[in-house]
């Protein structure tokens, strides 16, 4: 069965999106991404170290834009202006690629999104021709507003970035999903495979994660687990779960019992 994820007119087989931060080295990153089966991979944009060895490998050397959709993020930006400048640099860096992950942070402790600045940046970026996938709070009204501004995907957090606390408010994610017309992707907070499955069972279009894989004891093995969790969660969603009941209901026939 073809069950593809469509974002900004492009289709993907994998509903797992992965970050490339916090790994021990490029080899561990490469092995984990390979095991995850992800097709959309995020990168950060940072100042080049002056005087660095120019032969030093670059992350784009092994994450070929021919093979992966490279999704530059604006992580570390605290204002709309910083985020917009970062996106413009990323577009040039990635030879005209307009797809960006907008992330405007509120403070260093929670890494919660600064929603007024996020809305401002989203509006300007969309007007400038960017295809914006936006990290946001799990507020259903703001999620809808971001969709209305033209974001191609809305990505509410499950819990704080890097916390691994899983989906803290599934009801909000459900409310966002019930009104959404663009893919809703849970971004941030997933800790282990069951968290990813829950997001998919709720009906999310995908999950974006980084720390849950990179900081597992065996990152490549966790990447594989996440791949399966996303697939099984998606299948369970499509299959439609049974109705929940307050009391037991026997699985075996109650007639014909020996006396």
């Amino acid at each position, binding site marked *: 069965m073809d069950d593809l994820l469509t974002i900004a007119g492009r289709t993907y087989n994998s509903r797992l999106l992965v970050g490339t931060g916090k790994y021990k080295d490029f080899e561990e990153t490469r092995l984990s991404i390979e095991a995850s089966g992800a097709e959309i991979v995020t990168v950060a944009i940072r100042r080049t170290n002056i005087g660095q060895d120019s032969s030093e490998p670059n992350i784009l050397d092994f994450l070929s834009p021919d093979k992966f959709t490279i999704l530059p993020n604006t992580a570390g930006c605290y204002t709309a202006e910083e985020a917009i400048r970062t996106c413009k640099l990323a577009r040039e860096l*990635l030879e005209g690629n307009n797809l960006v992950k907008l992330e405007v942070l509120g403070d260093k402790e929670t890494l919660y999104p600064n929603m007024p600045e996020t809305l401002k940046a989203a509006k300007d970026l969309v007007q400038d021709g960017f295809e914006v996938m936006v990290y946001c709070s799990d507020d259903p009204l703001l999620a809808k507003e971001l969709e209305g501004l033209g974001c191609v995907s809305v990505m509410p957090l499950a819990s704080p970035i890097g916390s691994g606390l899983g989906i803290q408010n599934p009801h909000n994610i459900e409310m966002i999903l019930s009104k959404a017309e663009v893919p809703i992707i849970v971004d941030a907070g997933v800790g282990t495979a069951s968290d990813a499955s829950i997001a998919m069972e709720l009906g999310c279009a995908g999950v974006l994660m980084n720390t849950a894989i990179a900081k597992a004891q065996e990152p490549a093995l966790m990447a594989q687990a996440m791949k399966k969790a996303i697939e099984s969660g998606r299948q369970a969603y499509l299959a439609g779960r049974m109705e929940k009941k307050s009391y037991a209901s026997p699985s075996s026939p109650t007639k014909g019992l020996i006396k």
Partner: protein
Amino acid sequence: MLLKVNGDSVEIDDGSNMDQLLDVLEIPKTKVAVELNGVVIPNSELLGKVLKDQDILEIVRAIGGG
């Protein structure tokens, strides 16, 4: 002339262009993007871009991130 590159002061010969600056700073010339005084330089014009005194540059690359 004096430039500000990624927040640091950099002294370079008058009339230098981006190509020369990247050589001096030992920064690779591919897989980078440059903002000059707040405006991104298109890749096609990057290396030939002539710099002037007090220019402010941000030179960036992609790194691992989530």
